[in-house]
């Protein structure tokens, strides 16, 4: 069989860069295959996507070396438009790529540009909408859809063209765990039913492997490091060295001393076959858990009592919320979009005002405090650092809050230096913000909040869209900060983040506080998981597989072991 995509000794260099981004790529992808391309940020996987769909070199200037054939034809000669008839790309940000004003128009977009007559267009839109199950939403605007639905619309928008290859650029980046699982299942179903070749670019290995993948291509620094089956990859040692997160159950098995090999079919927890001896090892590991002593509860920092909030249009975003956050805690606020997580933060910061209930900061009722006054106790870090940075130089940005409070210059300088040191940004003090990477900008925004010395910082999705390496960098920094005495609250739907770093999770759904418990307990409660659009962790399944009833205790055992291993590194 002829490969549908074939890279031969392929390289790519952007005009604006000195060094090539891709080197010596040799990769054949055959019709009907499902291929996962994984690798840390900056490994060249996004460039590989751009080379396939033609954005490079047609939108981003650059040069090819070697050869790339798509459907047997040399790609050098075919522009973006020609390639888009063979390869359909679903971009990462399903919000920004929503071009049409309604679902139907968005799906029809490619047909409109191809001058397809209106009658035929309507029929084809209808067919593709049915394929991805959005036919009930044809007249809806993007803001009326959930993240998962928007992504399905994007998929329908490339399926109208009957492409051979579906190319997904980080399809899980903006979805909650349950929607992510559904997305992977949908991709799997479409690939089978429509006989498509599927290429997925993702660094969330475990989540993609929820469905079968034929191959995993691992990239690092512009080169292909491995091109193998998921089974082989999971049993090797490559994952640890490239900074891709291995599935939790695999890590747990390794902690328990079980040797994982391909014959155990370890690619999915559902197919994993453990011998009795292996199960015994896991049970033994579980039972040797060291006793932990319960720490005394610290003094309350933020107390929320019977909070209810309705928007002007009558939508009840929060209902009867009561909770207490204590000094020094690291807490996750979880729940799907629209569950009330962000609303709670807005109320705490004073951006909105509740109709009922009250919020106390260090025992003081906040009702009469302005946004500015509250900011001295609670710092709020927005998701996108570009939305927060308003000064050209790092120093000015970090000192802004103090300058506005008319503190003396020496005090400002001292606080800026301290905040920059905490965020490991001291070498950049004289730099312009624009010269920094995304992760560094994120740290600048955190530093600019820390310079006010708040008791607590609230972060909205601090790791959204970050790969494992940057995620770890950001989270370890926050953990460090937390140990130095700052109370940290994170809005997230990343379950790994909750498990690995937080002591406590507050789970919201439809404006109510569903649970306030340890992450291990939350993620071992099937009813709660279902309601809050979370996902069962594979640890839960592994516990069942090994005959351990107390999945929560098993998860806790894992977390402790994992934290110890991580800190020991």
């Amino acid at each position: 069989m002829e490969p549908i995509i074939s890279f031969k000794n392929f390289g790519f260099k952007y005009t604006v860069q000195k060094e090539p981004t891709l080197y010596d790529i040799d990769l054949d992808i055959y019709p009907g295959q499902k291929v996962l391309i994984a690798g840390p940020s900056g490994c060249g996987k996004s460039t590989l996507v751009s080379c396939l769909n033609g954005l490079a070199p047609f939108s981003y200037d650059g040069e090819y070396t070697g050869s790339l054939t798509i459907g047997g034809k040399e790609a050098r000669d075919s522009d973006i438009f020609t390639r888009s008839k063979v390869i359909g790309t679903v971009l990462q940000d399903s919000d920004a790529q929503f071009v049409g004003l309604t679902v139907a128009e968005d799906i029809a977009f490619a047909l409109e540009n191809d001058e397809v007559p209106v009658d035929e267009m309507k029929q084809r839109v209808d067919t593709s909408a049915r394929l991805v199950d959005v036919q009930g939403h044809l007249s809806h605007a993007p803001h009326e859809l959930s993240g998962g639905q928007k992504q399905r619309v994007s998929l329908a928008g490339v399926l109208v063209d009957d492409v051979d290859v579906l190319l997904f650029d980080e399809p899980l980046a903006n979805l909650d765990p349950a929607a992510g699982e559904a997305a992977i299942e949908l991709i799997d179903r479409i690939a089978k039913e429509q006989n498509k070749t599927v290429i997925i670019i993702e660094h969330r290995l475990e989540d993609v492997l929820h469905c079968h993948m034929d191959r995993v291509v691992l990239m690092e620094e512009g080169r292909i490091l491995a091109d193998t089956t998921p089974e082989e990859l999971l049993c090797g040692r490559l994952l640890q060295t490239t900074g891709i997160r291995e599935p939790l159950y695999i890590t747990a098995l390794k902690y328990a001393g079980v040797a994982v090999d391909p014959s155990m079919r370890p690619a999915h927890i559902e197919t994993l076959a453990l011998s009795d001896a292996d199960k015994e090892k896991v049970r033994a590991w579980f039972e040797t858990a060291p006793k932990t002593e319960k720490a005394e509860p610290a003094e309350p920092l933020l107390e929320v009592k019977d909070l209810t909030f309705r928007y002007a249009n009558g939508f009840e975003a929060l209902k009867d919320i009561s909770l207490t956050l204590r000094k020094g805690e690291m807490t996750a606020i979880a729940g799907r979009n629209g569950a009330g997580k962000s609303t709670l933060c807005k109320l705490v910061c004073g951006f909105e005002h509740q109709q009922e209930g009250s919020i106390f900061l260090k025992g003081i009722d906040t009702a009469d405090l302005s946004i500015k006054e509250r900011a001295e106790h609670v710092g709020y870090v927005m998701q996108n650092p570009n939305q927060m940075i308003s000064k050209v130089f790092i120093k000015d940005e970090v000192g802004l809050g103090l300058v506005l409070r008319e503190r003396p210059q020496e005090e400002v300088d001292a606080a800026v230096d301290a905040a920059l040191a905490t965020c490991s940004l001291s070498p950049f003090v004289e730099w312009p913000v624009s010269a920094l990477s995304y992760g560094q900008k994120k740290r600048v925004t955190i530093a600019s909040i820390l310079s006010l010395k708040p008791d607590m910082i609230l972060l909205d999705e601090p790791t959204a869209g970050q790969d494992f390496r940057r995620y770890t960098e950001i989270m370890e920094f926050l953990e460090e900060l937390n140990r130095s005495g700052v109370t940290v609250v994170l809005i997230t739907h990343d379950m790994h983040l909750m498990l690995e770093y937080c002591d406590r999770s507050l789970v919201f759904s439809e404006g109510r506080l569903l649970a306030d418990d340890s992450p291990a307990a939350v993620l071992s409660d099937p009813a709660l998981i279902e309601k809050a659009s979370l996902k069962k962790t594979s640890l839960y399944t592994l516990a069942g597989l090994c005959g351990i009833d107390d999945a929560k205790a098993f998860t806790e055992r894992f977390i402790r072991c994992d934290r110890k291993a991580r800190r020991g590194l």
Partner: protein
Amino acid sequence: MMNIFNYIERRSPIHAMTGASKLVCLLLWSFGAMSSFDPRFLFALFVLALVLFKISKIRVADIRFMLWFTFVFCLLNNLLIFLFSPMHGTEIYGSCHEIFHIAGRYTLTQEQLLYHLNVFLKYAATIPIVLLFVTTTDPSEFASSLNRIGVNYKIAYSVALALRYIPDIQREYHDITLSLQARGVEMSKKASLGARLKTASGTLVPLILSSMDRIEVISNAMELRSFGKNKKRTWYRYRKFTAWDFGAMLLGLAVLLISVVLTAFVNHGRYFNPFV
């Protein structure tokens, strides 16, 4: 959040018309109203515009901000005309009926008053119809109608996208100001207008940066789906003209024709002159 310049969804015959016929009507109407200085005609157009508004079910409350804005602008325009050329009416109408002398070179004349009435009525006759078009035509309908009257579809589409992103950018601006306020920027009424303007300009940097990101993604997404491949494109929302559409275009044509007839045969010039 206030609505500045946006489509408002209602069910009305005017909403149901195609954007193209509304646009044609708007253009003809505006030409007609702009070229005439006959207060009787302009007043009639104003009344007609109010009737159309009634049919469209758009309420004054929906467009309050824009109405205030144009009202203030109109006042300012009139004030400046009077300040810089208080005898403009006299020059136009060739006579001088003094009402009273104010000071220096400023004298109030009947001619000047009539001229100001005309300027006012021009706003009154055109602004409602522009607002009516904007509030009853959604961005994609707008793009396709621009394209239908001969504007290149790439330009038409970018105008529509810009209109569509206004609410998003407003929301983003709101978020940015909130985060700045948390940093200690005073944006409430406690701060002086100057200080508030200065901080508002501070939000521009983050706003522009995040908009640039958005533009890059959207233009890639469009190109990947063949936008710009052909000279023409079709439109999912394309509809055939109905009786209402022909009616609207005829109405626009009638306005222009009346204006031309008034200028050529009745007033013998653009100005209706009661002083001769």
